[in-house]
């Protein structure tokens, strides 16, 4: 096995807690069961696994009604369910320029939306969101933490604006769930979409959507739920309404173990660790001529993601050299978030992104910064 320093954590966290790996293996072996289909003990046990994981997530996100959490295969599906579910009868949406394509493409497909631009450090001004509200606005969507610059948006303030104007507030927590504090009530969040496989440290194929009381969703995907089989219309009770088709019970069980891990370690401690690494990397990169780190320097407003550019070299090429010559996995390009790059001034060449997780260490920071110094030195040697 080739050892590689893995810094593509914003795409998915490659290393998971051992309890997650053992749970996934054990449950694949013993509980590859169809939750809530039929009355045999495996069906009932599968359903218990699903509700147990929902309970744990509810604790993490301070959700008082865990049955309002539905599991999906990733954040993209959750976001599509939320956006299409709210706007199925039409209506205007407000999104920010820091959104991922999993938000931008669904709203663009529906056609009636406004993009509120963040500043050049990647922060959205809540007043700009307020100013974009129109008579037919139904939905505000905002990513909690940017997958490019790591900027953390003022979610609670935006939530207050949404609530005061009777709008539904959807938060994309793909890059924040498990590290940045989320309190759905205090932040006036009506819909929370999250990935299970990124900072929540769960297995691939997991994600979910919390649907608050105010959000009247139309089901986006319809199908078998194991309930009300005689009816040709989708049940409207949660989570059945959003649970069409077989659930990934072993992965949901393992996600539960991941949440246990986070609750035990403390998400704020995990975030502090990631921030420490990110801050150290930023300081090192800032001292290299020709390297520019995107975003602000106030670490309280960032997570563990750091994106940067190297003058004179396309980001994909920097990332390729890091992978091939230094065994460091990063991601170059536009990260499915072109408007965020436009906002941050990197529309032309994209950027190299390194994101830290609980399992990275200062060793990884040093390795990356030395590699970048080397790449810049070699680049200069070629040019001069």
């Amino acid at each position, binding site marked *: 096995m080739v050892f590689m320093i893995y810094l593509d954590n914003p795409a998915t966290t490659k290393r998971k807690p051992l309890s997650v790996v053992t749970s996934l293996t054990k449950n694949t072996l013993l509980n590859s069961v169809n939750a809530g289909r039929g009355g045999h003990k495996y069906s009932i046990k599968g359903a218990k696994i699903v509700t147990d994981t929902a309970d744990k997530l509810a604790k993490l996100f301070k959700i008082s009604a865990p049955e309002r959490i539905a599991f999906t295969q990733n954040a993209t599906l959750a976001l599509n369910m939320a956006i299409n579910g709210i706007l199925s009868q039409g209506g205007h949406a407000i999104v920010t320029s820091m959104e991922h394509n999993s938000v931008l493409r669904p709203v663009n497909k529906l056609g009636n939306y406004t993009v509120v631009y963040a500043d050049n450090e990647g922060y959205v001004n809540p007043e700009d969101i307020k100013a974009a509200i129109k008579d037919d606005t139904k939905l505000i969507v905002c990513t909690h933490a940017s997958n490019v610059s790591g900027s953390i948006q003022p979610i609670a303030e935006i939530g207050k604006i949404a609530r005061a104007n009777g709008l539904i507030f959807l938060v994309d927590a793909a890059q924040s769930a498990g590290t940045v504090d989320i309190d759905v009530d205090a932040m006036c969040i009506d819909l929370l979409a999250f990935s299970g496989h990124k900072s929540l440290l769960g297995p691939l194929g997991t994600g979910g959507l919390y649907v608050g009381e105010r959000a009247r969703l139309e089901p986006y995907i319809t199908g078998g739920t194991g309930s009300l089989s005689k009816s040709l219309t989708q049940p409207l009770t*949660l*989570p059945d309404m959003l649970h069409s088709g077989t659930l990934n019970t072993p992965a949901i069980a393992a996600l539960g173990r991941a949440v246990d891990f986070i609750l035990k370690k403390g998400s704020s401690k995990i975030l502090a660790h990631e921030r420490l690494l990110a801050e150290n990397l930023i300081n090192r990169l800032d001292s290299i001529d020709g390297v520019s780190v995107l975003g602000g320097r106030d670490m309280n407003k960032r997570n563990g993601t750091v994106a940067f550019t190297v003058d004179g070299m396309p980001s994909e090429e920097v990332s390729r050299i890091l992978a091939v010559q230094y065994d460091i996995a990063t991601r170059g390009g536009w990260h499915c978030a072109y408007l965020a790059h436009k906002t941050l001034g990197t529309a032309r060449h994209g950027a190299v992104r390194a994101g830290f997780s609980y399992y990275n260490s200062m060793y990884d920071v040093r390795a990356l910064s030395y590699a970048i110094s080397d790449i810049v030195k070699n680049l200069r040697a070629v040019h001069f």
Partner: protein
Amino acid sequence: MPQIYAEVGSITMATRLSKELSAQKIKAEVIHTPNSTSGCSYSVKTDEKYKDILTKYTARYKIKRIIKSDSDGFYDIS
């Protein structure tokens, strides 16, 4: 002791209701509702003596009806 079934819409509600009862040391079992009129639903089965307790949870767990089962069959007693 005759058994009663609290029929709810979804397995999630049934699981949660049974957890709630188990926390009160009440023996409760999630079952696939026999003869469900809606076509596939789940119920929480427990002793008839707990009917009043079950009734308290009607709104919280969206209990649709309470069914009694004895040697004559099943009847709606909600």
